[in-house]
């Protein structure tokens, strides 16, 4: 987690004022939404059935995770891969660094991996004097521009093609272009040079299969395949929750993932990695290492509610459909995982004291839960985390003991409860509300709560005492 966090209100203000970013995002998100709907409608007979099947498969794997992991380790080793274990983010970074030191490698090329963002790999290696180069087009754009991903699937979606052309011109000395094909060509030419003499490639893992001791990587650009086949050594970074039982289970997930993420029926590249290069193979790395890292996932798994978020397959559908994310973009969350899923996993992975403020970024509209392919009840979990934030639940996530409690708010809701469980007092207060209409309308700019509301909206005119009116309607029993 970065230590230079910008204050919540401040970052919201900054991002809301970035009209170009908001326009880019809004257009992109609406396109992704439409693509998803179209592909589900045209290509799937039983999308809901598939969701149910996926939820079950993932839950099965999670409920037997220890066995799955050990089985994976055994079979992957049998296949000739090297399996490493890391409990923390730092451990995972260290493992990679040690491997590099051992092999005297000073350059690393990366396929797209949110896991590497989560453990802060680039930053860690940079401090050790090692350059980690991004090869995913979106990630490359961000790296050149010194930004973090705005989205977990389409990391540079907040930049339009004109902006990308400008970045390539400034950072790579390329000719100013704005056509996607020409921009691609610039990136390809730049990366080709990097791929030459490549010794070490790093990738994430979409799904690992314990029975087969293999793992599955999907991608659209082919750069991922370059990272996993061109170098001598391939390191795959894998959160422990990615391990599933069988190839068939993983296939169910893949068939949900791309439609949910971008509206594609299938990914452009499916890479199923089973072993390092064998005798007689023409290509492929000589060594394949897989790092299974925990980083508080075990804590989540032990939690009665939050374990559900470990089903996440990182498709980003929840953020594509989130009306808040749409307006503020991923950077406002100031954590690696933005959007609804980020609101659930970031407090669990990085501490609710560090990231709890992002729980405000939700109107609880419930659309994220509706579109999540693996049926994570995101809105409900966000609400439960809010209850953890105010200290009202038994089993709070990481960092709850350091949480700053809002005593004023808690007092207000206690008063609200006192009033709402006392009908006579409630009625007395509300029956007099219309007497205060004049006062409220005239002092709306200085009254707490109302001040915030009336900054942007007209207040309703309160003209009547409902209790008095209701009694005069024929056919109403007032009791």
């Amino acid at each position, binding site marked *: 987690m970065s230590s230079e966090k910008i204050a919540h209100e401040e970052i*919201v*203000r900054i991002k*809301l004022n970035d009209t170009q970013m*908001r326009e880019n995002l*809004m257009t992109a998100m*609406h396109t992704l939404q439409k693509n998803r709907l179209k592909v589900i409608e045209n290509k799937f007979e039983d999308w809901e059935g598939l969701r149910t099947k996926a939820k079950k498969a993932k839950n099965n794997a999670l409920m037997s995770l220890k066995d799955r992991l050990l089985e994976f380790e055994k079979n992957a080793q049998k296949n000739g891969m090297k399996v490493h274990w890391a409990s923390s983010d730092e451990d995972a970074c260290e493992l990679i660094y040690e491997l590099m030191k051992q092999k005297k490698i000073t350059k690393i090329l990366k396929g797209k991996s949110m896991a590497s963002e989560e453990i802060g790999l680039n930053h860690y290696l940079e401090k050790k004097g090692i350059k980690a180069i991004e090869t995913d087009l979106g990630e490359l754009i961000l790296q050149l521009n010194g930004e973090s991903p705005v989205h977990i699937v389409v990391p540079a979606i907040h930049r339009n093609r004109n902006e990308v052309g400008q970045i390539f011109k400034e950072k790579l000395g390329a000719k100013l272009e704005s056509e996607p094909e020409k921009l691609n060509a610039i990136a390809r030419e730049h990366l080709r040079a990097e791929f030459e003499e490549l010794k070490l490639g790093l990738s994430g893992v979409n799904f690992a299969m314990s029975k087969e001791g293999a793992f599955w990587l999907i991608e659209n650009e082919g750069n991922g395949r370059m990272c996993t086949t061109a170098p001598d050594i391939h390191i795959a970074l894998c959160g422990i929750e990615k391990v599933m039982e069988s190839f068939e289970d993983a296939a169910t997930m893949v068939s949900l993932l791309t439609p949910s993420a971008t509206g594609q029926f299938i990914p452009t590249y499916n890479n199923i990695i089973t072993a390092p290069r064998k005798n007689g193979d023409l290509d492929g790395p000589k060594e394949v290492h897989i790092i299974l890292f925990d980083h508080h996932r075990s804590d989540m798994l032990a939690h009665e509610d939050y374990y559900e978020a470990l089903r996440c397959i990182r498709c980003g559908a929840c953020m594509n459909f989130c*009306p808040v994310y749409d*307006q*503020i973009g991923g950077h406002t969350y100031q954590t690696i995982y933005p959007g609804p899923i980020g609101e659930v996993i970031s407090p669990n992975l990085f501490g609710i004291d560090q990231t709890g403020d992002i729980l405000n970024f*939700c*109107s*609880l*509209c*419930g*659309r994220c839960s*509706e579109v999540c392919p693996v049926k994570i009840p995101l809105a*409900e979990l966000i*609400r*439960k*985390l*809010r209850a953890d*934030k*105010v200290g*009202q*639940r038994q089993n709070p996530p990481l960092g709850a003991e350091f949480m700053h409690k809002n005593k004023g*708010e808690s007092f207000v*809701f*206690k008063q*609200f*409860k006192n*009033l709402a*469980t*006392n*009908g*006579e007092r*409630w*009625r007395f207060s*509300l029956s007099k*509300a219309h007497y205060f209409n004049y006062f409220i309308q005239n002092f709306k700019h200085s009254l707490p*709560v109302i001040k*915030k*509301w009336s*900054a*942007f*909206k*007209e*207040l*309703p005119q*309160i003209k*009547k*005492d*409902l209790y008095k009116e*209701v009694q005069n*309607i*024929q*056919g*109403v*029993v*007032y*009791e």
Partner: protein
Amino acid sequence: MKKIYFYATCLGTAAMQESIINAIKLLTREGIEVIFKKNQTCCAQPSFNSGYFKESKEIALYNVNLFEKDYPIVVPSGSCAGMMSHDYIELFKKDKELERVEKFSKRIIELSQYLDKVLNVNYEDKGEPIKVTWHSNCHALRVQKSIESSKNLIKRLKNVELIDLEYEEECCGFGGTFSVKEPEISNAMVKTKIKDIQNTGVKYLISGDGGCLLNIDGTMKKMGLDIKGVHLYDFLLKRIEGERL
């Protein structure tokens, strides 16, 4: 004669009395005996959504005790209905009161569902030909699932043409306490919603939920737009009584 409890909602009691009265009239004109519990308060959604589960449970039990007879509880808001029919059960999932709460929750029905599905009302539209568009409340859409009934009622009015609102299923940014906690984001969301409403070219936005209307209509008024937000139950009663909007 059919007897029902009517749940006025806190927002309806405090700020939208006219709509509540019209909602009740829609029931009495069908010959329903409407029981109005004078000690009714709030469904507890504000505290629930802010994470104050302890307080919310106390309020929920207060409601379970207050509406003691086995009549349906008709709620003119998908949001509050969803809270009481669905979220209460979630709230009491591991508690000994669950069975009582479930019994209560099963009696909750949103007013448009009651008019459409239970009473199957027949409306004579006395208004001039008019074009309107519709805003779906998120909780009504995804939790209470009452939007279909609300639209069915509008479709029974022969002089009313319902124009589709693009991105109808996107939240308007009210979200109860959300609009107070994150007023700037809420405002950005409602502005987007209003742009979509303007794109339909109609002069009336109908919605079945007071909160969304306070938000959308309040902002349109502040912007000085020539589009009016009308509560579904005001709209229905005025159409069948031939009153002007």
